[in-house]
């Protein structure tokens, strides 16, 4: 895997004003890079700011602070319409809710072709139709489906339509915001397999957001764990699973139920108590093991290094 | 004054039985209804029939209207007129008192009349009724001289002297009118702004005292025990309720809540056979006014065509259906009598217009030719009441029998119609007029050039001359004066076709049989309740 940076997120902040005086710091100073061709998994409990991160990266929100560099270019500077359009083709998004993410009043063909229409990617209606059919086949549907309306599809099929829509503009980076958590178990695998297949075939880069660590671990190369708007731990998938360092990560891992009765019988759950942290100084993101970063104070850093050692 | 199908009081009555001496029995309470609240009980400010009705019932002027519309003594016992007809001296009775015990004196008249023309009062009828009648009235009203200069004087407490501008033969009947009622100076000044706004702020010297006045709901009058003629008053109480919908009124009448109701045409059919049904004639006249500055209507033939094309009888029978009669001219029937022969004005002059559609069409076509027009759209200014709307629709239909005439009906409230009338913003206008005193002059005077209510653009030297003569040279010559008026009317209606007379209004009503002795009046208060009583309830 090449280690070429595709996206760099620097000190990204997204604060929402919810009242005259109250502010929700949904994302509060994120720093991480995504390499070309990899899948970066982002996990964390509900409401910790995962979706906000994704949406801010793709400019659905204007960042409160910080920058997002795509191929070295800041996405969040003021840009001309043309530059924005180019960017819109590069970066795409797959949404969480397959029911809410498709316009119920549009035919599948028009939904998929919308990006092509906006960017003028098809010469005529025939070419457009053909491309739509091609995309439908890519995601495992058939061309007969093009003339139908979303409500005629099951959740998994809908999610595949959403993927086809994102693919229509040939993006190289896709943010998948919990693309499977609204789906049935039996369907989840279909979508995950499809995403993997597309990555292999087209060399896509993913930011894969979820709260289900087992699925994320399966699909991701590297994983970031978020807690209350901050990244608390970042490591290779295997590494993170085998050596979770931050107590929150540990509790998260311990909470995931696995389809293995024996494991479950013997499972012990950790509860995370944020007050256990050392509050003497502002925590920082430090590399505890190679490629394995944890949010910690100096004191904690030393402790973690002691406990988990460097490399094995 | 100006009349509208709706703006008049709903109050009217039957005068079938007028012997005041008949024995009264049962509870002497009369229940009535009116379609509107009393706008004011301040005699200087009163302008409408409801106000004049109840002012008249509670206050005696110099004279009051009695049987057959003839003046009978009120506060004045008698009067003398000077040789030149300009100075009238009234001798007041000494037993007349206000309801607060004060005697009614000549000064009460002086005060009230001066107040009526005083510009500060803001009276509308004061300047109108007194201007040109009482010496200096117009000058006072215009603020040129102080009110004290008005030609009225209290010679002593019980002698009241009036100086007129010119001889007015009908002045006696004028003094019965609301604007000429006396006022107790001390009381009025005491109450200031509040005067006459509530029943507590009222004084009366007449047969009844207003004891309750719930605005918008109704009012109650009780017999005035201190009234100088109290022994002839039998009613103990009059209750009046404000009811706007005729249907509601009829329902109330049927359930015995009120003793009289005025009927609109729909109900006439239903009640015509009833013993309680009657028709009250009124000297109020309705006509189509034509703006002589409009296209076509400037042509006298066109106007004559309009006069002739309307089938008035059908309109009265079907739309009004209340006993109204077709109007033959500008002066109503049963209003003015020849001073010698006692013949009715209307009967002498007869029908000055006839319905003749053929002739009308001919005249209209001639007029079109003369005016060089082929078609014309004219605006018809109508009222906004139900009956008015129907009538307007009917007249539109009738008028459009004239080829090339399109009539556009605009329905506006009464006040707005008056406003437009003043600015002559109309082509046709359905208007009416009721008398302010009993003399043909009240109808004919307004059509003189620049007459206060002319607004038709009509200006005829001949006509002006006749009216002028009747009111000055002939003031003391009743017969010739009367005949001049007859001539004038012919000129006005027949030759110059200023108006298209429509009908003389009547009021269909139901009246409980046990109510007796109510007199209907041609002007001022619609009814005299002084002699009314209940019998056999």
């Amino acid at each position, binding site marked *: 895997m090449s280690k070429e940076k595709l996206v760099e997120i620097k000190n990204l902040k997204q604060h929402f004003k919810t*009242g005259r005086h109250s502010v929700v710091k949904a994302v509060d100073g994120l720093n991480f890079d995504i390499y070309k061709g990899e899948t970066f998994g982002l996990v964390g409990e509900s409401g910790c700011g995962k979706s906000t991160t994704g949406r801010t990266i793709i400019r659905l929100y204007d960042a409160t602070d910080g920058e997002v560099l795509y191929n070295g270019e800041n996405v969040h500077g003021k840009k001309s319409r043309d530059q924005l359009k180019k960017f819109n083709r590069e970066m795409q998004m797959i949404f969480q809710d397959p029911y809410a993410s498709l316009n119920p009043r549009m035919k599948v063909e028009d939904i998929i072709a919308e990006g092509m229409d906006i960017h003028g990617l098809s010469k005529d209606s025939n070419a457009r139709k053909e491309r739509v059919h091609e995309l439908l086949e890519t995601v495992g549907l058939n061309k007969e489906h093009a003339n139908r309306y979303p409500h005629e599809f099951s959740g998994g099929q809908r999610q595949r339509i959403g993927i086809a829509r994102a693919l229509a503009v040939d993006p190289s980076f896709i943010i998948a915001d919990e693309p499977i958590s609204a789906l049935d178990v039996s369907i989840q695998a279909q979508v995950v397999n499809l995403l993997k297949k597309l990555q292999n075939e087209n060399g896509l880069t993913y930011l894969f957001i979820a709260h289900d660590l087992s699925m994320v671990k399966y699909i991701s190369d590297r994983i970031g764990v978020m807690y209350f708007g901050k990244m608390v731990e970042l490591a290779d998938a295997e590494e993170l699973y085998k050596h979770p360092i931050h107590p929150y990560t540990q509790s998260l891992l311990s909470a995931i139920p696995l389809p293995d009765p024996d494991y479950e019988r013997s499972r012990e759950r950790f509860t995370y108590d944020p007050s256990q942290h050392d509050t003497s100084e502002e925590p920082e993101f430090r590399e505890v093991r190679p490629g394995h970063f944890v949010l910690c104070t100096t004191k904690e850093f030393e402790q973690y290094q002691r406990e988990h050692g460097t490399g094995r | 004054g100006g009349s509208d199908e709706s703006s008049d009081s709903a109050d009217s009555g039957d005068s079938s039985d007028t012997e005041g001496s008949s024995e009264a029995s049962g509870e002497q309470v009369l229940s009535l209804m009116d379609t509107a609240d009393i706008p004011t009980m301040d005699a200087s400010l009163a302008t409408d029939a409801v106000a004049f009705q109840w002012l008249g019932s509670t206050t005696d002027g110099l004279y009051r209207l009695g049987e057959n519309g003839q003046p009978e003594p009120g506060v004045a016992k008698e009067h003398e007129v000077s040789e030149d007809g300009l100075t009238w001296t009234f001798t007041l009775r000494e037993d007349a008192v206000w309801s607060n015990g004060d005697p009614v004196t000549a000064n009460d008249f002086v005060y009230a009349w001066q107040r009526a023309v005083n510009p500060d009062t803001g009276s509308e009828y004061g*300047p*109108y009724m007194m201007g040109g009648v009482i010496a200096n009235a117009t000058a006072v009203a215009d603020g040129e001289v102080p009110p004290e200069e008005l030609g009225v004087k209290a010679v002593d407490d019980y002698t009241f002297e009036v100086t007129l501008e010119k001889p007015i033969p009908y002045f006696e009947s004028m003094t019965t009118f609301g604007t000429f009622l006396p006022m107790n100076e001390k009381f009025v000044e005491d109450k200031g702004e509040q005067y006459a706004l509530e029943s507590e702020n009222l004084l009366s010297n007449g047969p009844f005292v207003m004891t309750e006045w719930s605005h918008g709901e109704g009012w109650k009058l009780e017999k005035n025990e201190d009234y100088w003629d109290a022994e002839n008053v039998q009613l103990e109480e009059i209750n009046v309720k404000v009811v706007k919908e005729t249907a509601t009124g009829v329902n109330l009448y049927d359930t015995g809540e009120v003793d009289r109701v005025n009927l609109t045409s729909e109900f006439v059919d239903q009640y015509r056979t009833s013993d309680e049904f009657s028709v009250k004639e009124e000297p109020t006249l309705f006509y189509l006014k034509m703006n002589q500055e409009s296209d076509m209507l400037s042509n006298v033939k066109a106007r004559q065509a309009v006069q002739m094309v309307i089938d008035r009888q059908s309109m009265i029978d079907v739309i009004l259906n209340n006993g109204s009669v077709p109007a033959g001219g500008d002066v109503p029937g049963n209003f003015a009598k020849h001073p010698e022969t006692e013949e009715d004005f209307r009967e002498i002059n007869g029908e000055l217009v006839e319905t003749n559609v053929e002739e009308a069409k001919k005249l209209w076509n001639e007029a079109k030719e003369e005016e060089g027009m082929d078609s014309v759209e004219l605006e018809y200014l109508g009222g906004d009441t139900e009956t008015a709307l129907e009538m307007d629709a009917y007249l539109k239909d009738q008028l459009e029998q004239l080829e090339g005439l399109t009539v556009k009906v605009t329905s506006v409230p009464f006040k707005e119609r008056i406003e437009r009338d003043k600015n002559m913003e109309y082509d046709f206008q359905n208007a009416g007029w009721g008398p302010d005193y009993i003399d043909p002059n009240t109808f004919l005077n307004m059509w003189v050039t620049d007459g206060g209510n002319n607004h038709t653009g009509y200006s005829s030297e001949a006509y002006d001359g006749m009216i002028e003569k009747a009111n000055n040279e002939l003031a003391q010559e009743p017969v010739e004066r009367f005949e001049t008026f007859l001539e004038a009317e012919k000129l006005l209606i027949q030759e110059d076709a200023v108006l298209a007379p429509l009908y003389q209004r009547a009021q269909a009503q139901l009246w409980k049989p046990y109510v007796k002795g109510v007199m209907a009046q041609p002007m001022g208060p619609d009814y005299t309740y002084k002699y009314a009583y209940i019998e056999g309830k």
Partner: protein
Amino acid sequence: MTRYIIQRLIYLVITMILIATLTFFLMKFLPGTPLSAADKLSEEQQQVVLEKYGLDDPVPIQYFNYMVNLVQGDLGISFQFDNREVSTIIMERIGPSMQLGVQAMVIGVILGMLLGLVSAIYHNGFMDYTSTFLAVLGQSIPSFVFAGLLQFYIGVKFGWFPVALWEGWEYTVLPTASLAIFPIAIAARFMRTEMLEVMGSDYIVTARAKGVNKVGVVFKHGLRNALIPLITVLGPLAISLMTGSLVIENIFAVPGIGEQFVKAINVNDYPIIMGTTLLLSFMFIIIILVIDLLYGVIDPRIRLAEGE
């Protein structure tokens, strides 16, 4: 909460000022004067009368005076009732209208709710169809037609209640009934829809799973939640009562504000039109405010959200 109310009151004042301004200038467009016998007066004499009403000043000054007087509660004097203060005239009339309005509203909402509840409980049954039919009928027949029929049949034919006039409690029966029919219909239909919706929600199933019986479910769990949307229509209902009362008062000879308003419109009595407009607007805004506060009373979620 208090802060919220204060904020709303400030809005109220602003709204009232705007409404006053709007009506004032609208009135200036209209023809007509306080003169009732303009046909009989010379120009000068008319001028004198206009002066009395302050109508001879330039419009901006008139506006200024009007607003200044308004703040002091002075709405001017009526054109049709000489020398009478508009504020007094209106105050005299407000009582009966309020009484009718409140009675009709209370009866309308309570009866309507019951009807709606019955409908919802016996969903798709005979009772449901009957009450739905009645509701649609009540909503579809103009109130003045109802009023006329009630007056004739109940008042004249059967003599159960007084035909018209305003002399005591029994006199309010027919006008209240005529006025209440529309609110009954609206409330019934709304209640039905909402109740059905609420009855399908999860917490109702939870309540039933607890073993609460049908009546308990409907009244303890359903009603309050179904009321929230119903409250929303109370505002429009209040308007419909106002609309209704204009004609109902005429028909039943009730000395109310609506009847007077219609009269004022018919005779161009602008001070009364303006005064009544302001009053109606004021009452209406208050109603909306009360309704908004009611939301909070009924729905604790809103209470908290606005409390902050």
